[in-house]
Structure formats: structure tokens, C-alpha cells
């Protein structure tokens, strides 16, 4: 837990103070790291019989969890829209419908609603991913083992998968994977739908 925050802060410090690193695109390195991590996690879990028994047992649950997570997130956006006079309820729900899938959701939103909304969607969903990345162990402690999967949204199939398996346990890996997969497919459709009402 503290190790994670320290490494994150060291990363921020390095990026901030070392001149040649500025403007460097890290997305490929991050992608390779995530792919390797996912391979290693698969390798550790592959021989684990419990994992496969879990999918057979919980078919309904594995589909309902991502759907409810999306509904909860959009509802939160609608509630938050009351606070901000410059964001109507459609705009607010667009931000929370991103489910951490910041690359795609921010591109879709900025294309129609401009850079301000695009950046807001980007930052809010990056933060969502970061919070899960840094605080998964705490989420498990206070809200149960399913909490980081619900919180992680579309990112639970790649970026946050390692930390979720670490904090919730190996038997939550498949659930996280399916959750992220379903949401990654649903988020673009939902955002496209919401955008038809936005102005």
C-alpha cells in the first residue's frame, strides 16, 4: 500500500524534474508492462481449480455486477450535477459513464462537446483508475472484496487487474476480467447514446 504511493510519487517527481522525460509518450511502455503482468497473473492462476469453479457457479453474478456498477456510476453523475450550475445532468452523467475508460470516453466527448468537457472526462476517469490503483487494499478493507472491481470499471481487465488480484485474491481475477470486458464494450455505446441528448 505505502510502497504503491511512494512509487507513484517517485514517478511524478522524475517526470517533473528530469527535463528529457517531459513530453515523452509512456503509453507503449505501460502497455508492455501491463501485458507482461497479465501473463504472469494468468500463469499463477492457471493451475488454480477454484478459479474455474467460480465461473461455473456464478454465471448470473458475473454479468449483473458490471451492469449495476454502470448504473450506480451514472446515478452518481446525475446526483453530482446538482452541485455544479455549469454542468447539466447529461454532461455530468457523461463524465461518470466513462467507467475509467478515459482514452475512448474523452475522445468521444471532446469530439462533440469540446476540449473542456473532454479534459474533464479524461481527468475524472484517470483519477478513477488511479484511486483504484492506489487504494484497492483500503477499498477491500472497508467495502469488501468486490469493491475494487466495482470501482475499477472498465479498467479491471488490464491496468487495475494486477492490484485487484493482489488485494481481493486470485479467485476474483476472472470476475474482474469479465467485468472489465463487458464494461469496455458497453461504455462506448452508453456514451454515444448520452451524447445524442447532450448540447
Amino acid at each position: 500500500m505505502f510502497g504503491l504511493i511512494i512509487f507513484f510519487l517517485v514517478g511524478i517527481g522524475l517526470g517533473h524534474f528530469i527535463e528529457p522525460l517531459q513530453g515523452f509518450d509512456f503509453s507503449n511502455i505501460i502497455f508492455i508492462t501491463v501485458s507482461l503482468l497479465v501473463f504472469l497473473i494468468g500463469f499463477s492462476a492457471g493451475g488454480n481449480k477454484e478459479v474455474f469453479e467460480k465461473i461455473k457457479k456464478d454465471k448470473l453474478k458475473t454479468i449483473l455486477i458490471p451492469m449495476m456498477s454502470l448504473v450506480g456510476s451514472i446515478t452518481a453523475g446525475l446526483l453530482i450535477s446538482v452541485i455544479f450550475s455549469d454542468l447539466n445532468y447529461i454532461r455530468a452523467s457523461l463524465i461518470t459513464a466513462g467507467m475509467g475508460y478515459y482514452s475512448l470516453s474523452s475522445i468521444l466527448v471532446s469530439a462533440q462537446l469540446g476540449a473542456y468537457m473532454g479534459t474533464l472526462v479524461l481527468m475524472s476517469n484517470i483519477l478513477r483508475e488511479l484511486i483504484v490503483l492506489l487504494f484497492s487494499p483500503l477499498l477491500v478493507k472497508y467495502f469488501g472484496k468486490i469493491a475494487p472491481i466495482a470501482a475499477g470499471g472498465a479498467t479491471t481487465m488490464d491496468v487495475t487487474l494486477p492490484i485487484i488480484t493482489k488485494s481481493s485474491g486470485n479467485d476474483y481475477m476472472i470476475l474482474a476480467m469479465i467485468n472489465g470486458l463487458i464494461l469496455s464494450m458497453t461504455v462506448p455505446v452508453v456514451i454515444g447514446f448520452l451524447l445524442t441528448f447532450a448540447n
Partner: protein
Amino acid sequence: MLIIFLSLASGLFLGFVYKGERLKSYSEAITRIMILLLVGLMGLSLSSNREILHNFFDLGIKASIFAIGSIAGSITAVTILLRLLERGEK
């Protein structure tokens, strides 16, 4: 996305075929180290992106409220779902 899936599938397959314990405990140790590296890289990519950093304080508060709110909403909804499913099973 395809590559991530292939990585997971090949890892699962190899883990399924390989029955030994030694390599697996190594891979768990490497996983732990790589998670730390990944988080460091995230910080690095965030702070090396001037555009994000420049707008960070303008939009930061709004974005934080939405991020925390959406997480709270999702956790609440899923927790309610699990309670309902548990009650259904009894």
C-alpha cells in the same frame, strides 16, 4: 486489447499445463515488483504530460468529485446487488 487477452490466455494455459510450484512462486514475486513499477510509470506519464499538468488545478476539484462520486455509486450499487442475490439464494 487483443494482445492483453493473448497474454492472459497464454499465461492461463501455461499455468494450467505446468503443475510445479516453484516457478509460480517466482512469478508471484515478480508480479508484486512489476505492480510497483507500473504505478511508478503511471506517475511518470502523468507528470511528463504538460497539458494534463497545466489544466490539473483548474479542473482537478471537479474531476476529483466526479471520480470519487462515480466510485461510491458503483460500489453502492454492486453491494446492493450482492445483498439481493444473497437473499435470493436463501
